[in-house]
């Protein structure tokens, strides 16, 4: 009898623990809500800002969060969403952050369509962010009109210093030599000749036919960079707007796109393109297209930025290149401590005896049917959009406070440097305290995280770090000189193909497949030869127009003609 009673009590206890656990999870939120309502309002209570940006710190009360709160005298509550997908799930539940850093204009359009964004005027930006405003206006007179929808402005366009730079292509110098080429290819015809040799003349000399000329990543992240150097030789990008006869036309529906697809298809049929391009990924820490290039599976890669190719053993393409080539590992190991030598190699545009074998060469232009208008894809001067939650429509004080914070983040070097963490984390002062410099092997530190999520530095809280050209090499030294004094000017000279429409179009918000998934599906099938381009092209374009493309093009031209009349 006693035993059964005991059992009952144990069971009861277990059940109550479960219940308490269930409810504690639900009630926690209510608890914090009550406290923030505050029955005893103190005068000094700091303003609370609910902040969303990519790559939030892993934990609350990180170094970065504390530094931020102290500097700006606010209480910041970071939204736990890693990306726009996670944010949209939160939004569906009705939680709207005070400030949202969005990366694409499509996102701004979607959020505006949902009615969750506060509007603001250009004058308000001018008043609350005077230096930032001046800086942007100097570079682009229309800069603050790009976040306008239906005549109202829904955010602050975030400028990117050193932007609009070609995302160029590089080619393996060792393979060119092995196949007997002494000139870097610069036309599509020359490229085809080289590509054929890369595929069939055993450029890596292992006696096995296991090489391809090129591939591209068919994932969404790759977006407009998809085979962009080849499309660029035709003067268009299939996912960008282009101007023809003074009218905006979507790149995918142009004749140039059709011709480029025919060429890519013929290359595919000849076996030059790695058939795995359909499932290849553009940028991961594993087997992505940079890995395939660095490991001698392909001999040509495009769609990366100048700082991805930088010879510093840290840039995306370069780190993979060094990891797979012993000669370069030796170079970096033997020069450790000697910054000038360590970061002394530049991106070359021709064969160079200054380089260590094997190396890659930057192709400065691939000339195609577009002639001198051939160019590489380049993003715009916008690095994102700062948008405010609808609740700030009424709470102007908070909106201005956030603007003020961003103004300081883009103009004050002592604040900008927080993006790189506290002194001693990844940087330190040089001996005479005149210049900040990188700490050796900082990336091997235990609490290092490339996105700053470990301690709360990085772009989440310090969002404006790349807005001001003055601060790009705030952590100075040879590596920054290599990037901004040598590589950047080399890449800035290259011809580019850019998107002619910079605003959000309503039709694209309502049917996002129209500007990406639908064109990509056809492009992949056309390259693979799953569909015959000549016999399906007209019907495909007609279908695109019918499914919303007509409306989209109309909206694009309304905006475009508006900018022309100015």
């Amino acid at each position, binding site marked *: 009898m006693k035993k059964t009673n005991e059992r009952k009590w144990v069971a*009861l206890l277990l*059940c109550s623990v*479960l*219940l308490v656990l*269930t409810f504690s999870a639900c009630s926690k939120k209510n608890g914090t809500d009550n406290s923030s309502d505050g029955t005893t309002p103190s005068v000094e209570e700091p303003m609370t800002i609910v902040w969303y940006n990519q790559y939030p710190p892993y934990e609350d009360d990180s170094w970065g969060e504390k530094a931020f709160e102290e500097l700006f005298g606010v209480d910041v509550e970071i939204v736990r969403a890693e990306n726009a997908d996670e944010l949209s799930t939160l939004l569906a539940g009705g939680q*709207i952050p005070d400030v949202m850093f969005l990366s694409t204009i499509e996102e701004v359009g979607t959020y505006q369509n*949902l009615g969750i964004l506060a509007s603001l005027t250009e004058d308000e930006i001018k008043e609350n962010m005077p230096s930032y405003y001046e800086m942007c206006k100097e570079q682009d007179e229309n800069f603050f009109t790009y976040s306008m929808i239906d005549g109202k402005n829904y955010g602050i366009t975030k400028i990117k210093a050193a932007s609009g730079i070609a995302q160029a292509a590089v080619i393996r110098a060792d393979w060119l030599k092995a196949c007997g080429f002494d000139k870097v290819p610069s036309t599509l015809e020359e490229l085809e000749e080289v590509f054929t040799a890369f595929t069939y003349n055993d450029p890596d000399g292992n006696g096995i036919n296991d090489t391809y000329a090129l591939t591209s990543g068919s994932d969404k992240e790759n977006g407009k960079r998809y085979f962009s150097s080849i499309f660029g030789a035709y003067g268009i990008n299939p996912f960008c707007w282009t101007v023809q006869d003074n009218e905006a036309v979507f790149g995918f529906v142009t004749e140039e796109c059709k011709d480029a697809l025919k060429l890519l298809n013929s290359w595919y049929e000849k076996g030059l393109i790695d058939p795995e391009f359909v499932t290849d990924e553009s940028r991961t820490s594993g087997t992505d297209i940079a890995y395939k290039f660095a490991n001698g599976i392909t001999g040509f890669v495009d769609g990366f930025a100048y700082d991805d190719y930088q010879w510093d053993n840290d840039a995306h393409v370069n780190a993979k290149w060094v990891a797979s080539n012993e000669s370069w590992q030796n170079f970096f190991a033997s020069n450790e401590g000697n910054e000038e030598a360590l970061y002394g190699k530049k991106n070359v545009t021709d064969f160079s005896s200054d380089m260590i074998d094997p190396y890659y060469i930057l192709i400065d232009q691939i000339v195609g049917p577009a002639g001198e208008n051939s160019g590489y894809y380049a993003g715009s001067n916008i690095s994102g959009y700062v948008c405010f939650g609808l609740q700030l429509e009424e709470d102007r004080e908070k909106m201005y406070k956030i603007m003020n914070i961003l103004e300081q983040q883009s103009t004050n070097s002592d604040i900008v440097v927080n993006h790189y963490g506290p002194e001693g984390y990844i940087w330190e002062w040089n001996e005479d305290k005149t210049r900040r410099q990188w700490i050796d092997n900082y990336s091997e530190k235990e609490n290092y995280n490339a996105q700053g999520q470990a301690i709360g530095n990085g772009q989440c809280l310090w969002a404006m770090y790349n807005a001001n050209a003055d601060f790009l090499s705030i952590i100075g030294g040879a590596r920054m000189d290599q990037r901004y004094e040598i590589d950047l000017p080399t890449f800035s000279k290259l011809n580019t193909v850019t998107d002619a429409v910079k605003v959000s179009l309503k039709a694209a918000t309502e049917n996002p497949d129209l500007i990406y998934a639908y064109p990509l599906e056809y492009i992949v099938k056309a390259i693979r030869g799953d569909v015959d381009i000549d016999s399906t092209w007209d019907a495909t374009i007609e279908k695109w127009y019918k*499914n919303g493309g007509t409306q989209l093009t109309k909206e694009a031209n309304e905006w475009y003609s508006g900018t022309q009349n100015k």
Partner: protein
Amino acid sequence: MKKDPNQMNLVQKKSKFQLIGKQLYHYRWMYLFLLPAVIWYILFAYLPIYGISIAFKDYNIVEGVWGSAWVGLDNFRKIFSDANFARAFKNTIFISALKLIFVTPSGLILALLLSEVKNKLFKGAVQSFSMLTHFFSWVIIASIMTVMLSPNTGVVNQIIVMLGGEPIYFLAEEKWFIVWVVLSDIWESAGWNALIFIAAISGISPELYEAASIDGAGRWSKLFRITIPCLSGTICTVLILKLGGLLSGNFNQIFNLYNSAVMDVADILDTYVYRLGINSMQYSYSSAVNLFQNVIGLLLVFTVNKIVKRAGQEGVV
């Protein structure tokens, strides 16, 4: 003495009530154990049902579920005029039907095979290993498959080439893609699906087999005359439940495997809803698609249940 019928009814009612009360009290600890599960269902399965209403509204986050404007059947009209919906609908049914034909029986076959194994250690090991795959995330399985099926470096194609064949790009060819969707699903879920059948087989009385042996029945006739007939109830239950999910394919599997080359056969309703609902935040529209899926699923469950009952088997409802 005549009893007043009303009074008798009252007594019966009271006793019924008392009976329930008594039963509740008798099993009070059992009910207490059930309580957390009931609470979970109320919180996460029943309360959210009110959100279905956004399928008939133009959902606006700021206005909330109640405040958003009613739009009647507009979202459903939009669904049926969308070419991509039609494609996703067709693909979902096709993939689900294939899985129903090949994947569901795979669990049964595995269970039957295992029931014939005498060595307990071997049987346990096979059962554990085949079930283990169920706990792998599809993200991982898809990465493994992409590597294994690679036309350049994949082990499957290396074998094909070694045998003198041409490498096949399995994940980019429409017909092969479907084959691998089914095969990988079998690999992932056969062990798990077998579980319910193994339990049912172990419930069959050994006396039946002994009697059959005495009558001279071989393995095959025991299988077809004892095991399968005894399992028919379980098979029907599984069938009904699977048919209910006919319109919801395995999102995780397809999402991690599909690519632009195979969209024509691979884009299912779940991935379509994901792109619209999460990527483009068309909450109302995607809810409408989802509601449509669920209503069809429920109808299928009832229909099949009725058919099964007619055929003399026990249903689930």
